[in-house]
């Protein structure tokens, strides 16, 4: 059989001390307030807790700091000031992202968005151009077509399916990517070429300039016969013209993204730390 005091303490243990603490802080209203008041009136422990919390709040407010005097003077020396003043690009970013410049966040967001959209649109256009070039390249062959396509191939990576069908253009050259033009017909041959290639093939045999050989074109010397018949259509000159202006635009849009993000991050960071 439990003792009476044990029963009481068990009863108090079921009470919510946070409710009493909230009452002591004056944060309660309505039914919560009434419930807490009833609790402190009916439960002596809750009443003591309430009084103790009030006393602790008063004591905390009245307590002096544990260390009375600061150990040093915190004034800045001219050397400190010179070291702390932002310089160079940090000064520019600080000035641009200053909260006094109320346009910093919208400007940053706008620049970043514009840059991203520009990059996306530019590259989608680039992708569609290269995709459109591939079928045409597939119908064309080596020889003159390869010479015409070669300049544009410098604009593409290996994933762009460069529009050069250059079968037999340069034997011994290392093929970096399989061109879309000859992929279907001559993939095994390209592999053979990759195995056999020494990487030092000269341009003299193909009639192409040296930089063309440095471009990532698949070269299929053993498949020249398969791609020779229709080598008359100048396929990629238009493509090279359409993709050429995208490079500076990409740089421009990329710079816009970087500046915009820098403005945003700068203003957000400064706002969080010092606002």
């Amino acid at each position: 059989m439990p003792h009476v005091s044990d029963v009481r303490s068990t009863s108090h243990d079921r009470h919510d001390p946070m409710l009493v603490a909230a009452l002591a802080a004056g944060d309660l209203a309505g039914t919560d307030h009434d419930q807490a008041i009833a609790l402190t009136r009916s439960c002596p422990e809750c009443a003591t807790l309430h009084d103790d919390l009030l006393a602790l709040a008063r004591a905390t407010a009245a307590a002096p700091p544990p260390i009375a005097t600061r150990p040093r003077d915190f004034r800045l020396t001219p050397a400190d000031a010179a070291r702390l003043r932002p310089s160079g690009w940090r000064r520019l970013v600080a000035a641009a992202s200053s909260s006094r410049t109320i346009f910093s966040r919208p400007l940053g967001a706008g620049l970043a968005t514009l840059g991203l959209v520009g990059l996306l649109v530019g590259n989608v256009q680039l992708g569609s151009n290269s995709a459109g070039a591939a079928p045409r390249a597939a119908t064309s062959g080596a020889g003159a077509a390869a010479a015409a396509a070669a300049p544009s191939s410098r604009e593409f990576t290996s994933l762009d399916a460069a529009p050069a069908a250059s079968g037999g253009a340069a034997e011994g050259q290392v093929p970096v990517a399989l061109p879309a033009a000859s992929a279907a017909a001559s993939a095994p041959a390209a592999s053979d070429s990759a195995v056999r290639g020494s990487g030092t093939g000269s341009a003299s045999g193909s009639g192409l300039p040296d930089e063309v050989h440095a471009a990532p074109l698949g070269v299929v010397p053993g498949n020249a016969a398969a791609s020779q018949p229709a080598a008359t259509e100048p396929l990629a000159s238009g493509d090279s013209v359409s993709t050429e202006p995208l490079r500076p635009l990409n740089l421009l849009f990329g710079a816009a993204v970087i500046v915009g993000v820098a403005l945003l991050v700068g203003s957000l960071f400064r706002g969080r730390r010092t606002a």
Partner: protein
Amino acid sequence: MLDSPRLRIAVRRDPLIVEDLRSTTVSDDPVQRRDLILLENARSGDLDAFNDLVVCYQDQLFALIVRMVPDRDQASDCVQEAFFSAFRNLAGFRGGSVKSWLHRIAINAAMDIQRARKRRPVQPYPELDDESWQPPAGKDADPVTTALTTERHRAINDALATITYDQRAAIILFDVEGYDYAEIADMTGVSLGTVKSRIHRGRLALRDRLAGRMELFRG
């Protein structure tokens, strides 16, 4: 439309720039006006003006931080770093109270110190072992009362040093510095409910720590 309550709230939530404050709220408070003038001069490159601000607030900031960071050297470094940060970010001041702005920077610096301290724990309040310093007593203070007061202060400071940093910061900002819940939430970057919860739980934790010494505080 300009008189709509919604717009008024938006304007009040958006801090005014210093020049605007000078012509409105600053004129009512000479301390605030002094601070803003000093801050504006400091922005213009006047180091002496900034150091005048430092002189005005270094004791307050140290008293605040030394309650939160239980090591004198770390607290001192924290205050120094806070002033460095304030100087670096003078352009980031959005108006309002310079004191609150400095407190916010100092609290952020104290949080950084606390994070670093978790990796390198130190003995809390080693200065409390030194019995030489006592709070000043009045001329007609009773020695018993003085001793009790000293013991009470020591007990509460000891207990404060043992609760979590978040609870300690919330209690000090609320009880000692007198900030309201919204200001504390703004300073510490948490919600209003979190601030309340930290204060309530912190006080309950203090009572637990002082369970055997609560007679000091009763009556």
